[in-house]
């Protein structure tokens, strides 16, 4: 049995919060660069150039990529042979969020109650998705989520007869109605199957995947991801919604078995600032 202290977890969470807000993962940057090279619409190209400049300034001058530094969403893979000592896991994560958002000069965007709306002033609580896995590992991934794009996300309970084309239409419609609100070029996570909540959770998790992670997905999922991207890029929405061919930088899909009567589809829309960072303890 391996022991991990809460102190270590708090320290890791704090670092992740700061890292994610200032440094976009390399594959995200690369896809933006490629889009900028290929964009033919003058204003669209200018916006993409601004977004690339924005990323440089964020790193160089330590100014967050976006002012919406998000709600802190964690995916934790906890080895079943790990023993957490010195406190409770949830508190340890929340303490790390409070420290990271305070010391990292990040925005506190969480309200205590959805209707009374008083700010908690330290960006807690986080949203934590915990998964038990075999072994002694502890992997923590943070995907801070801004709500301009989150608000445009959907769960659609399709019928089995809707099939491949039905899913494609549902996802593309969601992207088009998101438009400028989601700060395009967007990055899109899709969850197909499972049930009502699992398809949404898969969609969120899909945002943390790199292109090569899709190699394990069914063949149709890879084809679907490509076709959704192509169709969305023909919509003309373009960077910042001001026109052009760069509307979606990437689509990632996760699937899961489902019920004989259902075809749930979750679509989690994210902006070009698809921030995430991971650590293993």
């Amino acid at each position, binding site marked *: 049995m391996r022991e991990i202290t809460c102190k270590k977890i708090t320290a890791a969470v704090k670092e992740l919060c700061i890292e994610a807000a200032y440094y976009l993962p390399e594959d995200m940057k690369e896809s933006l660069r490629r889009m900028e090279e290929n964009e033919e619409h*003058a*204003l669209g190209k*200018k*916006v993409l150039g*601004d*977004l690339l*400049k*924005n*990323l440089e*300034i*964020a790193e160089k*001058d*330590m*100014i*967050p*990529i*976006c*002012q*919406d*530094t998000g709600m802190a969403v964690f995916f934790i893979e906890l080895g079943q042979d790990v023993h957490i000592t010195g406190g409770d896991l949830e508190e340890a994560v929340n303490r790390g969020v409070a420290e990271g958002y305070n010391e990292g*000069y*990040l*925005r*506190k*965007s969480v309200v205590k109650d959805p209707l009374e*709306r008083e*700010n908690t*002033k330290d960006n807690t609580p986080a949203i934590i998705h915990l998964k038990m896995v075999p072994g002694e590992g502890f992997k923590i991934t943070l995907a801070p989520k801004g709500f*301009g794009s989150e*608000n445009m996300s959907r769960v659609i309970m399709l019928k089995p007869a809707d099939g491949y084309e039905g899913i494609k239409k549902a996802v593309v419609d969601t992207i088009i109605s998101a*438009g*400028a*609100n989601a*700060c395009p070029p967007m990055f899109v996570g899709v969850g197909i199957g499972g049930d009502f909540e699992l398809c949404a959770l898969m969609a969120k998790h899909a945002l943390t995947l790199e292109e090569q992670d899709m190699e394990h997905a069914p063949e149709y999922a890879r084809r679907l991801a490509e076709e959704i991207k192509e169709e969305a890029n023909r919509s003309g929405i373009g*960077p*910042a*919604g*001001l*026109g052009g061919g760069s509307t979606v930088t990437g689509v990632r899909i996760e699937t899961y078995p489902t019920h004989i009567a259902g075809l749930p589809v979750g679509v989690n829309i994210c*902006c*070009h*600032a698809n921030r995430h960072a991971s650590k293993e303890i």
Partner: protein
Amino acid sequence: MKTLNINSPLTDEQIEELSCGDYVLITGTIYSARDAAHKRMYEALEKGEELPFDIKGITVYYMGPTPPRPGNVIGSAGPTTSGRMDKYTPLLLSRGIKAMIGKGKRSEKVTEAMIENHCVYMAAVGGAGALLSKSITSSEVIAYDDLGTEAVRRMEVKDFPAVVAIDCRGNCIYK
């Protein structure tokens, strides 16, 4: 792509000159206000109360920044989704707000109120908060301090980049 240098507050003539799709560089004074500040302003006006600052002729920027690092005037400062302000906007335009900066579509009611009150709506690039912060040369909280990031700030900007998204005739870039 037409580029225009404009001063804020905007004159009626300037607003008249702007057309949907124009690229503008804004210099002068603008005010930040987003969801919570809009709700307060709206409720105060409904009750017939005075606002804590004069909104006549001003440019409002839908934005809630990250805290500044020591030595900086402001943190990351990009636009938030304007549509969430739609419910409050027609009343505020009828009381004097002349120009708005944000991102995304507006409702029909807002567009109608813009035509009626001769206003302009400009879009800044969403997600470019670090870059946009470089155009803000000063920032001071002037109202609703308790709202934290959602407080109202008076800001001086120099060559702040935006695109005319809806002009005073109701033409919209998102259509």
